[in-house]
C-alpha cells in the first residue's frame, strides 16, 4: 500500500500535467508521418500504401508519370514518379489532385434518358443501348447515314479513340466525326503534315535542357505546362530565353527577352526574321540544299518584310529583328516552341510553318536542343491525331487513298466497302451541317463543347436544333450533358486502362486503380456495348480489351512514321517508363529520349521538308470605334483545366484559382473608360455579353484585354473565325467593348493605383 503511493502520485501528476500541458494525443497522432515503402519517403501514417504502380497523368500533354499508392488494390494517394523521364519526380497541382476529382458528387452513375416531360429518367444500360441504337438508326433511315456525327476527345486513351472512330465509321456508317483536338492541335498537325510530310512533332523534352537559345511563341508553359518549364529551369547552359507573346505572362517574366508584339502579328515577325537571317548569312546552306525544297521561293517571298514593315506591324522596336537574328545566328542549338497563341489563329497554320521555316533554314532540327516544336494540349491529343479515324484514316492515313483503305481493311479484317472514301468534315463544317439540318444527331464523347466551342450562343442554338444528342461523360453537370437526350455515364482516368501519347510522342500507360461510381463504364466498354447493340459485334470481335486493341494499333502503325510495332505490350511500356514513337520492330533497345529527323530525312516522298508560306492576312474582325478593345483568351491558372469539369471538383484546386471572372485591362484603358479596379463590368462583343470584374494590370497591352477561358461564359464573346487550313477556331482575337455594370463602383477613385 505504502509502496504503491508514489506510483499513484506519479500517475496523478502525469494526468495533471496532461490536463495542463498536453504534448501529444489523438490530434497530434493524426499528422504523424511514417517512413514510406517503395522509395516514397515519409507519408502520413493513416495513408500508408501496401503496393504502388506507375501511370501517366490524364490532364495535359506533358504526360507526367504518377506513382499511385494502393491499398488492397485501390488508390489511396499518389506522388509524382521520381524516375519517370518526363517529369523527374514533379507534378503540377492538377496531377497531385488527380484522384480527388473522381469522387465528386456530380459524377454520372447511371444512364439517363430525357423523358417527354423534359426531365431525365434513370434507365438501365440495355435500355440506354436500345435508345441509342433505335434513335440513331431511325434518324439515319430518314435523313441518310450522314445525318449522324460524333465529337470525340483528346482526353481518352488511344484504344478508345480508335474504337470510337472505327465503330462510328465502319460500324454505324457515320461519315463525319471530329474531336476537341480541333480546338487545340489541328493547326500544328496540318502544319507538320504539309512541311514534314507527316504529323510528327520532332522533339524530345531533353531538348529543353540542351538548347542555348529557346524561343517561345504564343506559349505560356509556366502556367499551361509547368513541368515542361521544370526542364527549362534545369537547362544548365544559361540559355537565352525569348518569349514572343502580346501579354506579359509568367513565362515572359522568366524570359531573358520578352517581345510584347501586337496580337496576331507574329507571321510578319517570322517572315521579317527569315529575311534578316538570310541577310546576315545565318542560313545553313548545306542543310537547306540537302534536306529541304522551296527555299528559293521562300527567299524571294520574304524580301518585302523589312525591319520597317515588321516594326510597323508588330509594334516592336525597329532593331528587334536584327537582334533576334543575331541571337539565333550565335546559338549553337536553337529551339522554337509554340502553343495556342499560334494554333488558335486565323492564320495559325502558316504561322506554325513560318516557325518551322526558321528552324529548317538555320539547320536547327534533328540535333539535340533544336527543333520547331509544338507543345500539345491534351493528354492524348497525339493519339487522337493518329488514330481518331476522323479527318484522317487510322494510323495517320488518308481516307482518299485507296491503298490506305485497303491496308486498314486487311489489318482490321473488315470489308473494304465500309471504309468511307472521303475524309470527315471538320468540326466547324459539322456544325454548319447541323445548321443546314443535314446532321440531326450528335454523339459527344468526353468533351464539353457547350462551354468550350467558339461563339457559344450559336452553338447552344445548334444543339437545340438536333433531333438527338447523346453525351458520354464522367460528369452529368457539364453544360453539354445538361442539354443531352441521352447521357451515358463514363469511367474516367484512373478507372480504366489504356495508352496516351504526349507532346514528345511518348506513349504512356493509364491504369485502373480505383472503381468507377455506380454503373459508370469505361468508354471502351460503352463502345463494346453499343457495337453489340448495333449488331456489328462480329466486326469488333478482336476488340475485347484496351490491351487487345493496343495490338491492333501496333499492326495499324507498322511501316507508318508512327510505327509502334516494336512495343511488346503494356508491360513493356511500364518497364521502359514510356516509349516514344517510332518503335519499329527493328529497334531493339530504344533510348529514353529520342528526336526525329536526326538523319535529315523527312516524311515527304522525296525525303525533303517543304518551305510553306502565304501572304499574311489582316485580323478578320479588328477593334473599331464600336468595339474598341481586342479580347485575348487563354489559360488562367495552373490549377484550372479547360472547362473545369474535373478541376473544379477539388477543393484545393478551386482554392488556388480566382473566385470570379476577372477581365485583365491595362491601367490606361481602365482610366479611359473610368473603370475602378475590382469594379463590376459588362463585356460585349458582336456575339454576346458577359459580366466580369476588372483586374487592372499592365501585363496586358493598351487596347487589349484578357479573360481566362475556364469560365463558362467566356465563349459567349468569342468570334467564330477559323484558320482556313486547319479549321481551328481563333479564340484569341475578338473585338469587344466594356461598360460599368453598377454605379457604386465609381465611389472609389478610379484606376489610379498608387
Amino acid at each position, binding site marked *: 500500500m505504502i509502496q504503491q503511493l508514489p506510483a499513484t502520485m506519479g500517475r496523478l501528476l502525469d494526468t495533471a500535467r496532461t490536463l495542463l*500541458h498536453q504534448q501529444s494525443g489523438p490530434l497530434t497522432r493524426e499528422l504523424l508521418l511514417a517512413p514510406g515503402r517503395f522509395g516514397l519517403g515519409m507519408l502520413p501514417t493513416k495513408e500508408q500504401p501496401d503496393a504502388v504502380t506507375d501511370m501517366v497523368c490524364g490532364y495535359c500533354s506533358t504526360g507526367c508519370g504518377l506513382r499511385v499508392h494502393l491499398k488492397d488494390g485501390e488508390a489511396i494517394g499518389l506522388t509524382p514518379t521520381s524516375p519517370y523521364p518526363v517529369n523527374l519526380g514533379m507534378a503540377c497541382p492538377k496531377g497531385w489532385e488527380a484522384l480527388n476529382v473522381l469522387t465528386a458528387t456530380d459524377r454520372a452513375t447511371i444512364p439517363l434518358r430525357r423523358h417527354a416531360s423534359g426531365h431525365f429518367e434513370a434507365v438501365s444500360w440495355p435500355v440506354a443501348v436500345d435508345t441509342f441504337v433505335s434513335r440513331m*438508326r431511325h434518324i439515319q433511315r430518314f435523313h441518310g447515314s450522314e445525318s449522324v456525327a460524333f465529337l470525340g476527345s483528346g482526353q481518352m486513351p488511344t484504344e478508345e479513340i480508335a474504337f470510337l472512330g472505327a465503330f462510328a465509321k465502319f460500324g454505324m*456508317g457515320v461519315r463525319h466525326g471530329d474531336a476537341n483536338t480541333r480546338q487545340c492541335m489541328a493547326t500544328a498537325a496540318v502544319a507538320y503534315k504539309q512541311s514534314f510530310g507527316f504529323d510528327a512533332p520532332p522533339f524530345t523534352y531533353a531538348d529543353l535542357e540542351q538548347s542555348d537559345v529557346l524561343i517561345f511563341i504564343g506559349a505560356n508553359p509556366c502556367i499551361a505546362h509547368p513541368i515542361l518549364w521544370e526542364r527549362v529551369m534545369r537547362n544548365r547552359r544559361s540559355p537565352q530565353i525569348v518569349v514572343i507573346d502580346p501579354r506579359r505572362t509568367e513565362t515572359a517574366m522568366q524570359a531573358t527577352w520578352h517581345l510584347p508584339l501586337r496580337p496576331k502579328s507574329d507571321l510578319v515577325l517570322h517572315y521579317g526574321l527569315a529575311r534578316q537571317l538570310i541577310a546576315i548569312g545565318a542560313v545553313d546552306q548545306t542543310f537547306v540544299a540537302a534536306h529541304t525544297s522551296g527555299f528559293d521561293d521562300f527567299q524571294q517571298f520574304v524580301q518585302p518584310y523589312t525591319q520597317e514593315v515588321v516594326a510597323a506591324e508588330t509594334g516592336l522596336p525597329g532593331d528587334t529583328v536584327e537582334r533576334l537574328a543575331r541571337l539565333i545566328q550565335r546559338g549553337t542549338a536553337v529551339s522554337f516552341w509554340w502553343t495556342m497563341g499560334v494554333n488558335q489563329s486565323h492564320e495559325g497554320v502558316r504561322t506554325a510553318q513560318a516557325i518551322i521555316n526558321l528552324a529548317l533554314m538555320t539547320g536547327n532540327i534533328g540535333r539535340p536542343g533544336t527543333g520547331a516544336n509544338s507543345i500539345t494540349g491534351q493528354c492524348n491529343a497525339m493519339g487522337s491525331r493518329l488514330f481518331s479515324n476522323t479527318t484522317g484514316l487510322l494510323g495517320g492515313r488518308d481516307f482518299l487513298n485507296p491503298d490506305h483503305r485497303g491496308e486498314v481493311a486487311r489489318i482490321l479484317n473488315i470489308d473494304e466497302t465500309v471504309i468511307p472514301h472521303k475524309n470527315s468534315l471538320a468540326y466547324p463544317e459539322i456544325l454548319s451541317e447541323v445548321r443546314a439540318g443535314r446532321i440531326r444527331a450528335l454523339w459527344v464523347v468526353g468533351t464539353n463543347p457547350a462551354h468550350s466551342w467558339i461563339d457559344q450562343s450559336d452553338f447552344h442554338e445548334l444543339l437545340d436544333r438536333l433531333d438527338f444528342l447523346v453525351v458520354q461523360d464522367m460528369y452529368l453537370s457539364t453544360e453539354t450533358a445538361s442539354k443531352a437526350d441521352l447521357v451515358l455515364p463514363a469511367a474516367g482516368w484512373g478507372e480504366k486502362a489504356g495508352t496516351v501519347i504526349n507532346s514528345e510522342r511518348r506513349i504512356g500507360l493509364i491504369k485502373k486503380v480505383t472503381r468507377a461510381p455506380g454503373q459508370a463504364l469505361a468508354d471502351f466498354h460503352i463502345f463494346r456495348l453499343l457495337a*453489340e447493340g448495333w449488331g456489328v459485334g462480329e466486326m469488333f470481335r478482336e476488340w475485347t480489351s484496351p490491351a487487345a486493341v493496343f495490338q491492333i494499333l501496333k499492326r495499324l502503325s507498322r511501316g507508318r512514321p508512327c510505327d509502334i510495332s516494336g512495343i511488346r505490350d503494356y508491360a513493356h511500356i511500364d518497364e521502359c517508363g514510356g516509349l516514344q514513337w517510332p518503335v519499329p520492330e527493328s529497334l531493339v533497345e530504344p533510348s529514353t529520349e529520342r528526336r526525329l529527323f536526326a538523319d535529315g530525312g523527312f516524311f515527304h516522298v522525296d525525303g525533303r521538308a517543304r518551305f510553306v508560306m502565304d501572304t499574311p492576312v489582316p485580323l478578320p474582325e479588328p477593334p473599331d470605334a464600336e468595339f474598341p478593345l481586342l479580347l485575348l483568351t487563354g489559360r488562367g491558372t495552373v490549377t484550372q483545366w479547360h472547362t473545369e469539369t474535373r478541376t473544379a471538383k477539388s477543393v484545393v484546386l478551386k482554392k488556388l484559382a480566382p473566385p470570379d471572372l476577372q477581365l485583365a485591362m491595362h491601367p490606361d484603358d481602365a482610366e479611359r473608360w473610368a473603370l475602378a479596379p475590382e469594379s463590376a463590368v459588362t463585356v460585349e462583343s458582336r456575339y454576346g455579353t458577359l459580366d466580369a470584374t476588372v483586374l487592372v494590370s499592365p501585363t496586358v497591352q493598351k487596347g487589349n484585354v484578357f479573360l481566362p477561358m475556364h469560365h463558362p461564359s467566356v465563349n459567349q464573346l468569342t468570334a467564330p473565325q477559323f484558320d482556313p487550313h486547319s479549321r481551328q477556331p481563333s479564340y484569341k482575337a475578338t473585338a469587344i467593348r466594356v461598360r460599368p455594370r453598377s454605379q457604386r463602383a465609381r465611389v472609389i477613385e478610379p484606376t489610379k493605383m498608387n
Partner: protein
Amino acid sequence: MSSTLSCPPPAPSERALRTLVDGLLHEQGQLTAVDEFERALEESLVPDQARYYRALLPARPLRDGEQYGFEVNLDRCSGCKACVTACHSLNGLDENETWRSVGLLVGTRDERPVLQHVTTACHHCVEPGCLSACPTLAYEKDPVTGIVKHLDDQCFGCQYCTLACPYGVPQYHAGKGIVRKCDLCSQRLARDEAPACVQACPHEAIRVAIVSVAEARERATRGEFLDACPAPHHTTPTTRYTSQRGLVADGTGHGAKSANGMSAADRFAIAPGHSHPPLAAMLAGSQWSVGMYVALAMLTTVPNSLFSPVSLCHFVLTLFAFGLGALSIAVATLHLGRPWLAYRAILGWRTSWLSREALVFGLFMACATAGLAASVNVAPNLLGIPQWIHHAGFVGWMAPLHMATAITGVAGVWCSVMIYAVTPRPFWNVRDTALKFFGTSFIAMAWTISTAGLMEIAGEHLSPHATISASSWYLVIFGSTLLLVGWSVKVGNELALLTTRERFPNHWRARTAHLLNGALSGLVRWRVVCATCGAVSLLAAIGAANAFGSSGTSAMEGVSSMSNLSLPTLAVTVGCGAAGLFWLASELIERTCFFTAESTPGMPGGNGS
C-alpha cells in the same frame, strides 16, 4: 457503309445484351493494376526523390545561434503551386486545408509590368507572434532547430494566434476545433528528408537553409523581407526571399504596396473579416458591465451619496451589471473550438494578454460575485429573502466591493485592449482600441448614473411623503452630459475614419473605410439607428420623470395608489432600460465592425492563393 444500313444486322437479344452489361460492370469493378503490372520495386533506404532535393537541404549541422528557415528564390518561382498541393497531400491535411500558399505581386508602373508569384508558409520567426500570443502554451520553438511547432492536443481553439501572426500562417480547423500549421516538416527533416514543398517544387525554388539568428534580426531591423507584405520587425521571420529583380524589400515600404511599385495582386479585393460573434459579445458585454461597476462604485463611494445601496434600483443595477459580466465571459467560451479546456486559458500569462485578460476578468467576477451577494443582503425584501439574513453591516461592504470590481474590471478592459493592440493590425492600434473599449465602459457608466438618478426620482415618487430632491436631477444631468460627451468623442472618431482621405487601397484606414462605406454600411447604419433609439428612450425617461417634478404628482396620485408601479414609474423604468439595451446593441454592432472592418494585408494573395 450503305450496305450496313440497307440490311441492318439482326439486333442481339436483350438477354445477350444484359449478359454483356453484367460482364462489363463486373469487369469495371475489378482492380487489376497490381496483378497486371507486378514488378519488383527496389526497396531502397533512401527515398527515390532524394536525388532531386539533396542539394536543397542544409549540408552541415546547426551551430549555436542558428536555426532552420525556408529560403525562396523568387526568380525560380513561376506560380505553379505544386508546393501547396504537395504539402496538402504529403502531410495528410484535410480536404480544404492548406498550409502553404502562393500569392502574387504585380508591378503597378507601366514601365515595369512585373508578375511575381510568391510561395509562402510559416516563417518560423525568431520572435513568433503566435507563440507569445498563445494563452495555452500550445506553441514551442524548438531550441535546436528553431522550428515553431504547434501542439495540437494542447490547443483549445481560441484562434488568437491567427490574429497575432502577421502572415496569416496558423489555420483554424473548425471541424477539429484547433489551429494547425506548418512545422517545416520537422518529422521529415529529422530523417534527412526534405519538406513536402521542397520535394515538390519543379524549379528548385524552395530550400531549407541555415539561418543565423543574429543576421535574421539585423535584416528584420533593416526592414528587409519582401515587397508589399507586413514589415518584419514585429516577429523577425526567418524565411529569406532572394531575387535578382529587386523584389526583396529594402525597408523602403511595406503594406500592400512598396516603394518599388510592387503591389499585392489582391489589394483591391477587400472582403469583410470574420465577425467572431462570441468575441464581439464578450467585449461589448464585459465592457458595459465594467462601466456599470465604475458608476456603482462612484455612486456608493461619494460621500453623502445621492444613491442608496439599500434601494431596489441599486440592487437591480448591480444584478444587471453582474449578469451581463457573467454572461459575456461565459459567451466568450463559445468562441473556443474546445471550450471544455477553457481552464488552460491562463497558462500563458507570462506573454499572452489573453491569459492576463482571463486572469483579471476571473478576479473581476470574484469581486462582482461578492458584491452581488452583499447587495442581495441589503436589498429590500422583494425576493423573499428572510429578514434574518439582512444585516445592516453589509451596507458598508458595498462601496469597497464595487470599487474592487470596478478596478479589476478596468484592468480587464485594458487587457482586452492590449490583446488587439499587440497584434500587427493598425486598425486595432492602442489609441483607437482603447477609445472604443473604454468608450463602451464610459457610456455604460454615464447611462448607469443617469438611470440611477431617474430611478431615484421615480422611486421617490413611489413614496407620497417624499419630495423629489434636486440632487437626483443633478445625477441625471451629470450622467446625460457624460453620455453626450462620450458618445460624441467615440462616434466622432469613427466618422473621421469613414471620411478618411487616405488613398485606397494601400493605407489601412482607407481599406477599413472602404469596407465600412461599402460591404459593412448596413451595420454602420444600424449602429446609428440603435444609438438614436437609445437617446430617444432616455429623453422619454427624462420627460416622464420631469412629469412628476412639475405637474404630474397630483395627477398621478390616483394611479399610484392603485398600484405600486405607476405609469410614469413604468415609463421611466422602461425608458432607462430601453436606452441601455439600445446603446448596448449599438456598441455590440460597433464591436462587430471592429472585427469585420479589420483589413490588414498579410502575405500577398491574389489569383487564388
